[in-house]
């Protein structure tokens, strides 16, 4: 592992990523003004080794685009991304390649992320082949080690299998093994368990927890606040391309300050029927990220909005009622 181990592994500052909305021929001919999807509008956070940060939010909030921007799968329009001290925001793909090995992505759908024509051996060894690492024997050893680390023991039982012969949980473990084989420092997990059965989720989440304990930094994208509360060290809540609240996981869940977070937490169903809370259901749906409201982006749906909210775009700062300085929210009323 290169780079100094003391600073944060990943630093994101003021990240901005926009997509152009295709206008079509008619639009272009009529010179209609180009519209932009403001997927990520100024996101900043830090992630240390051995830490799990959960990026939480509803669809359209920009969490997936943030992850893709960090991994340079998508080019961002502004802001800075620093990985282990190196600024990778504008790095060319050739120079990026060696760093790419150290950040890996786990996809949401274990049924689609593995090539059905590859055996498990091929899937897990592929990253090594792509980066030209090791001899044939070394690759096999690494693959076996990775499968064991991912909980698929004995590895020999799985190496020659095709994905369709494995259950969802097993496939996800294969995907995790394939990302571990390069010994990454950062793992980005995009909804790693949302497509798996409930009885299987804990196994995968425990695996990620274990990897975190071994020093991996994990960025988990999820819409499931309950999972984030249980496994993440910190939670960052996103809304329309911005982080509206962030802090230690338990603090966010027990003492939410931003009105959006409070509403979100109140509508999460609890398994115990005796703990039914009166849900604070927001009306309507998240607005289109093409037309972000002026001022505070949440104010049209906010139960606590005041006239000033239309003019001020709040910064993240520690709310008055927060238990720790590390808890920050972007709201002028808290």
């Amino acid at each position, binding site marked *: 592992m290169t780079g100094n181990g003391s600073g944060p592994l990943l630093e994101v500052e003021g990240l901005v990523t926009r997509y152009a909305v295709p206008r079509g021929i008619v639009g272009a001919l009529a010179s209609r003004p180009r519209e932009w999807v403001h997927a990520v509008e100024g996101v900043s956070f830090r992630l240390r080794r051995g830490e799990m940060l959960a990026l939480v939010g509803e669809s359209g909030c920009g969490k997936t685009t943030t992850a893709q921007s960090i*991994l340079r*799968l998508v080019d961002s329009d502004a802001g800075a991304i620093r990985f282990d001290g190196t600024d990778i925001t504008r790095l060319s793909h050739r120079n990026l*390649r060696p760093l*790419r*090995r150290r950040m890996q*992505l786990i*996809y949401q*759908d274990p049924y*689609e*992320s*593995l*090539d*059905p*024509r*590859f055996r498990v051996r091929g899937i897990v060894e*592929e*990253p090594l082949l*792509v*980066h030209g690492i090791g001899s044939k024997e070394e690759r096999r050893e690494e693959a076996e080690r990775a499968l*064991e*680390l*991912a*909980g*698929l*023991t004995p590895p020999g*039982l799985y190496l*020659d*299998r*095709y994905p369709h*012969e494995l*259950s*969802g*949980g*097993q496939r996800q*473990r294969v995907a995790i093994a394939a990302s571990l084989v390069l010994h990454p420092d950062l793992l980005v997990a995009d909804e790693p368990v*949302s*497509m*798996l*059965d409930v*009885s*299987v989720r804990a*196994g995968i989440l*425990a*695996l990620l*927890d*274990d990897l975190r304990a071994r020093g991996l930094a994990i960025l988990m994208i999820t819409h499931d606040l309950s999972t984030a509360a249980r496994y993440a060290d910190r939670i960052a809540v996103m809304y329309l391309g911005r982080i509206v609240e962030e802090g230690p996981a338990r603090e966010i869940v027990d003492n939410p300050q931003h009105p959006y977070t409070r509403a979100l937490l109140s509508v999460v169903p609890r398994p115990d029927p005796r703990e039914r809370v009166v849900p604070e259901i927001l009306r309507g749906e998240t607005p289109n990220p093409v037309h972000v409201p002026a001022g505070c982006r949440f104010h049209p749906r906010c139960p606590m909005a005041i006239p000033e909210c239309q003019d001020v775009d709040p910064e993240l700062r520690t709310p008055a009622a927060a238990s720790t300085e590390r808890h920050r929210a972007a709201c002028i009323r808290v």
Partner: protein
Amino acid sequence: MTTAPAAELLTRDPDDFEEPRRRRHVVWSVIRTQPQATIGAVVLLAVVVVAALAPYIAPYGERERVGDVFEAPSSEHWLGLDDAGIDMLTLMLHGARVSLIVGFAAALVSMLIGGAIGLLAGYFGGKTDIILMRVTDYFIVIPDIPLMLVVAAIWGRSLTNIILIIGLIYWTTTARVIRAQVKSVRERVYVKRARALGAGHGRVLSKHVLPQVAPLLVAITVLSIAVAIFAETAIAFLGLGDPTLISWGKLIENAFSRSAISVDAWWAIVPPGLAVVVVVLACTMVGRALEDSLNPRLRVGHLSVRHFRLRNLGGEEAR
């Protein structure tokens, strides 16, 4: 090493794993459940075998004059004699070789060209796609007969030229179908994953994309064989074929130009025509069956009234 317990895996019996289904099994089961395709395949195979063995099983020489002009069929000459007194059956068997060679070779050319263009256009998209599709459009528009006339006039009438012409005219369908499938395969998560890993285009195309479109390519190529054989027949019939070679089209041309019809010598025209029809039909049946099961866009099962297939949004219930 304290790994997270692979708890859900401990009780998975090794016997529980299904036997990996080899690709060949898939194709065989398709053919088995589709009698049409099986008949087509059998007929095709028979014709190929017969054509291959032609020099050994033909009763007479293909230039050997054994009787009168347009002699009627008899016990010695099952299909009678042609305008030069040569045994028709022999000619048919030899003609089969040329027709099939041209058919297969031209289909191969169109598969290579169409497949490559479709693959590149579908995978890279953008400008590459636009340019390649423009080129394809121009080729679609080219009228085949006039082109053959021109090529025959300028470069001569050789077997190679015929194969090339047919291949160059008929690759366009292949290109469009393959492009469509490649575009959809390109969006699959495992392809994106390979790219995210840092795999180069070459690797992604050869290892991840091509294996997915290969079965469809095979199906379309089989259909191209039918088209190519038909095209060769037409070319030979118009007198643009290789004059030194016997093919079914040439036989029809001979009979036609020597007025076989006016002397009621049906045996000079009908057998080669029928042969072409049979082979083309056989290829079409096999090709269609393969295409139906391999081209996802043709799946119309969801329109059927009686069946309900529900897609499960997470899990293996309906898989």
